[in-house]
């Protein structure tokens, strides 16, 4: 893990997020176990299923890197203590940069 994130309770809905290995862009697991860069497709998991999904993600290292649990609402919206960090991961810097600065 590149950084230690807060522990979430088993019943707390969570998504599995990671970085795409080839590009580094942020991705989330979809309901069918694939990966998406589209936050509308974020799936929420709980309990044992979440653990199994994370274990499965950890085996896909060629495709993704450093998967971890991210707190979400039941419908996959970013929420909880790390909302700011995860929103920035999802949407990019909060300031205009490069040619747009």
């Amino acid at each position, binding site marked *: 893990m*590149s*950084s230690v994130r807060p522990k979430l309770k088993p019943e707390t809905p969570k998504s599995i997020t990671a*970085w795409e*290995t*080839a*590009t*580094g*862009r*942020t991705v989330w697991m979809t309901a069918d176990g694939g990966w998406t860069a589209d936050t509308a497709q974020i799936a929420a998991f709980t309990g044992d299923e979440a653990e199994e999904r994370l274990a499965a993600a950890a085996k896909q*290292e*060629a495709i993704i*890197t*450093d998967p971890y649990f991210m707190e979400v609402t039941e419908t996959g919206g970013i929420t*909880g*203590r*790390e*909302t*700011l*960090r995860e929103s*920035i*991961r999802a949407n*990019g*810097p*909060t*300031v205009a*940069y*490069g*040619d747009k*600065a």
Partner: protein
Amino acid sequence: MYRYDEFDAQIVKERVAQFRGQVERRLSGELLEDEFKPLRLQNGVYLQLHAYMLRVAIPYGQLSARQMRMLARIAREYDRNYGHFTTRQNIQFNWVALKDIPDVLALLAEVEMHAIQTSGNCIRNTTSDHYAGAARDEIMDPRPWCEIIRQWSTFHPEFAFLPRKFKIAVTGAAHDRAAIRVHDIGLHMRERDGVRGFEVHVGGGQGRTPHIAALVNDFVPEDRLLDYLEAIMRVYNLHGRRDNKYKARIKILVNELGEEEFTRQVEAEFAAQRSHEKIDLPQAEIDRIHAYFAPPELATKPETSDVFEAAKASDKVFARWARTNLHPHVTPGYTSVTVSLKPIGGLAGDATDAQMEIIANLAETYGQDDIRVSHAQNIILAHVALDDLPALHAELDAAGLATPNESLITDLIVCPGLDYCNLANARSIPVGQAVQKVFADPDYQEDIGRLHINISGCINACGHHHVGHIGILGVDRKGEEFYQITFGGRADEKAAIGDIAGPGLKSEDVPGALKRVVDRYRELRSGKDELFIDTLGRLGHDPFKEALYAAD
């Protein structure tokens, strides 16, 4: 400027090929992230919040126009048209894809650049005074010694797995512009009885446990420097705390052993080494490296320039910039120019590819092909004729690179913070922008005078908040950003770590609170030439704390 010999070129080329293979194996899944991470870090590749980040070494902050153009090309072709110049005098690209990084490194190798020694537990890029070889107050040019240290430390087998990263800084002027006392080793060049040497400071650093370095030896002659450094590294390698990341820096060791005992051990190691393994550099080698840094051949000019004086008299905007962004040059009729990367409301240290191209062109036209990156995240053109300043200023201004604020309150040092950094607790950039806005009026800034505000988004202190006259540290409180303010830090020869003023502030309260502090300073200063840091020293911190927490 140092030029690669065939060995340097070969080593860098081989390194690119090796890393290309490693990346291929990572992408095929043959290498797992845990195995790959130390390899990528040895090549400057980090995984940040939303992408990989590539940190490219700019040894002692010096670049040629050709190199700057290559950085521009990389920004354009492999990133999002910009790069970020850092407090370590390096550049970071924020959005490069891992699959492309071998190609990027190959392009860098074409212009004698690489990303070696920009991360991991090795001796990192040696940093220096950005006016080196140009400043009027310089006693000796530190760059040849930075280069000698670079050559000695790169791939040195004993230093490949240090307990922790290790940073060395060298300065050759009386006024320390390289913050040497907050480095693991800080070297201040001195001359004694006609012999050149170094005052050696060890164990400075910022981060979680900031320390000002201890003076370990007040004069090591230059031909013995490498032996002395080697002795320090051996003591560190032997006792440095590999078991605890937070205690692994040499500052902790110096502190735990005590300055006296640490010094005793270094001297003992030095003496032992001198008797059988000494690595005295032959004078010929010292001279050979120095030759690369010979001063540029500048046409003889009078001390004052009519063109320059006339432009100042007729153009207020130019006159202001000339007051703030120039630094006295050793050669009459010349100056060093700060190209500000701190436009009001911009991103400190960022430059677009187009701006990099412009800086490269201007360096060729007006600046002897010599570009520097300062630890304050600006660009310096080290040698510019006073006669050329009006033309240079016009071109910089058109490119948004002529903000007249060098060392003024809007020239903030700002780390990437939570907008980019995977370790951050809070954002730095928006807070810096908001602070800049309340002080934006250039008359107000000039009235305030030299005042360094430094911001870090976490305790790692990449934004040097501990040594800002005013420091701002972002902290996370249950998911909310707060900002802790420190007063009284400084990075120069009177280096000091700032004191925390009190409870953290919400981001929206920071600009107003700092404005109250600064206005209190303007009321209390003994005169216009008493700097904020000196008023603080004279009166203590209480009046400023009071202003900080006073209700609007």
